[in-house]
């Protein structure tokens, strides 16, 4: 083995494994945030490798808005069974029912999932939550640490972050405080797909091109389903689409695409002129600082 045969994907994988192991070694009660989206799938794959042949020494945690793509929930449940994992679900519909949060007039559960996330962290006494967020996704995330400190209200203070040098991560917290950890910080969307391809990882079918009833809203293609119906003047059309990101089904848009294999997705990702969140996420379109503001409140 020579130094040159170690590719950039191998380097990113090695870095992520190191970070995941630091979390388990330093923290008392870590959890892995798992949505069934491609980034959390890659993170889970890496976490399983980091501790093999032992079982994953932490539970998965899913904040379920109730607005799900069925293919993604199926995938989640299959993975949990396959690797004999523990799954903790923070349910937004349950939280609405017991009056913990109130449904917003526009029907979006993007903001109200944050208190549910924080409540689930608190109830389970998690002191670290690992997520698959990447710095290339969004400009506020480009400034966030790998080990990102949250105070006892779950808040991120971007102006008061812990310096992070070399590969030394400071996970020390007081009771009630916690750390969000992003082992895939240095990955790009293309790295994720290259990794999925090279390691032969299965992803939910909605990432591959398929036919779907969609309608055009604010420049995005939204699926017509039980959560989201066209308004006046919006026409349902049958189109070949795929999803670049998977989030709340009321907010996540599809892209027109014929890419029905991972190879074709990689070719398309390399050539695209739009960022994945810009192309598909209604939640980031609120303002220039939408992500920063949500993160300060405790969002992922």
């Amino acid at each position: 083995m020579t130094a040159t045969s170690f590719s950039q994907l191998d380097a990113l994988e090695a870095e992520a494994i190191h970070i995941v192991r630091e979390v388990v070694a330093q923290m008392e009660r870590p959890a892995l945030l798992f949505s069934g989206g491609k980034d959390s799938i890659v993170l889970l794959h890496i976490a399983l490798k980091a501790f093999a042949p032992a079982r994953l020494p932490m539970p998965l945690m899913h904040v379920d808005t109730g607005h799900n793509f069925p293919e993604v929930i199926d995938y989640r449940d299959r993975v949990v069974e396959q690797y004999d994992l523990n799954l903790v679900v923070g349910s937004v519909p349950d939280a609405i029912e017991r009056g913990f949060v109130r449904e917003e007039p526009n029907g979006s559960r993007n903001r109200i999932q944050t208190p549910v996330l924080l409540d689930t962290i608190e109830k389970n006494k998690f002191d670290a939550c690992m997520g698959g967020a990447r710095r290339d996704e969004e400009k506020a995330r480009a400034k966030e640490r790998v080990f990102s400190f949250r105070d006892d209200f779950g808040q991120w203070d971007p102006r008061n972050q812990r310096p992070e040098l070399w590969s030394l991560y400071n996970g020390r917290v007081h009771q009630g405080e916690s750390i969000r950890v992003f082992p895939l910080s240095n990955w790009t969307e293309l790295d994720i797909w290259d990794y999925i391809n090279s390691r032969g990882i299965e992803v939910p079918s909605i990432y591959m091109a398929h036919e779907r009833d969609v309608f055009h809203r604010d420049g995005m293609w939204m699926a017509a389903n039980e959560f989201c119906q066209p308004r006046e003047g919006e026409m349902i059309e049958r189109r070949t689409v795929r999803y670049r990101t998977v989030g709340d089904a009321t907010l996540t848009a599809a892209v027109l695409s014929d890419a029905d294999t991972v190879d074709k997705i990689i070719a398309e990702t390399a050539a695209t002129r739009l960022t994945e969140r810009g192309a598909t996420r209604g939640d980031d379109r609120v303002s220039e600082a939408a992500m920063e503001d949500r993160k300060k409140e405790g969002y992922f």
Partner: protein
Amino acid sequence: MDLLRFATAGSVDDGKSTLIGRLLYDSKSIFEDQLDAVEAASKARGTEYTDLALLTDGLRAEREQGITIDVAYRYFATPKRKFIIADTPGHQQYTRNMVTGASTADLAIILVDARKGMTEQSRRHATLSSLLRVPHIVLAVNKMDLVGWSEERFNEIYAEFTEFAAKLDVPDLTAIPMSALLGDNVVDRSVNMPWYGGGSLMHHLEHVHIASDRNLQDVRFPVQYVIRPMRNELHDYRGFAGQVASGIIKVGDEVMALPSGMTSRVAAIDGPGGPLEAAQPPMSVTLRLEDEIDVSRGDVICRVGNHPEPTQDVDATICWMDSDALTVGRKLGILHTTRMARAMVKDIAYELDVNTLHREKDVTELGLNAIGRVKLRVTTPLLLDDYADNRTTGSFILIDEATNRTVGAGVVREH
């Protein structure tokens, strides 16, 4: 395809944002929606041109004040390499951010305005890059269009830089005359400076040889975590998980675990893709040994004839990163590789003026962003190497035990 991490430091005036914007734009790493957002924001602010700094200044406070506060990480790739840019602000009050960016960099770009020549800021960048042992330095002499593409001016600045750098340890220096605004020598070679015989910045970034920067001589494997599956069929499995800091570890090698000093042989190396015959930095692997010896997190596995001496006395250069000053007698947490211990400050030998390299010996404390030489006494023996030999086992961070904040970064010096 391999990975190159590089750091840039400077302020808007030096053309740093323009340079990064051009590297990203010309490698097609800026997306249309990002550009649209930046154009709209520039217009809303009444700026006449598209301000590419808005692309990297991700925080509300940064956009409001028009300054870069924190390290931003940017990503781009060419068919030859993937690049990670640590984009750091250049002002003195952000020394800690520069140190952060430099700590993981393979290469640092020091931007100099051709009209101004070396400034206090460029001297600081050079000093910090040298202190953090960034293996490759690029002196980017920017705004050459504003000095008439003058070879003489370029040579003057190069001489000025090398005179200052003679006092530092700069292993590999490349000077490139450029105009980030017009694109000369950024991605394509300049037609305006036929006297310059070297390649463009992008060509250099794509081709600079980094494979031999890794220390492949001294085996150091800090143990992160002990894997014990606790299942019947894997009852005897004990794996020592970690990332190879340096050296090449092979199956069958005789190794020693420190601090216990017990020896064994490597029975197997488990990598993320399956069993391996050998492991080298920066691979994350799991080692299994032939004998059951006592090894736990914080210990280091190394070769029998080549190992660090455990010590409780640490002599180091510190960058202090907190507004609450470092003083003699202060107690702190210290994280070195995977070992956490407590340290007490025994002495502050001097504070380094990063602009003049003067060593001020008569100091009683190190304030925010100060750099100085200190002596620490540690509760548990640490397995240190000189930072010059090993960036992983020669570095540590200091943690305030009351607030848990990371307050200092240190590099171990033997001389």
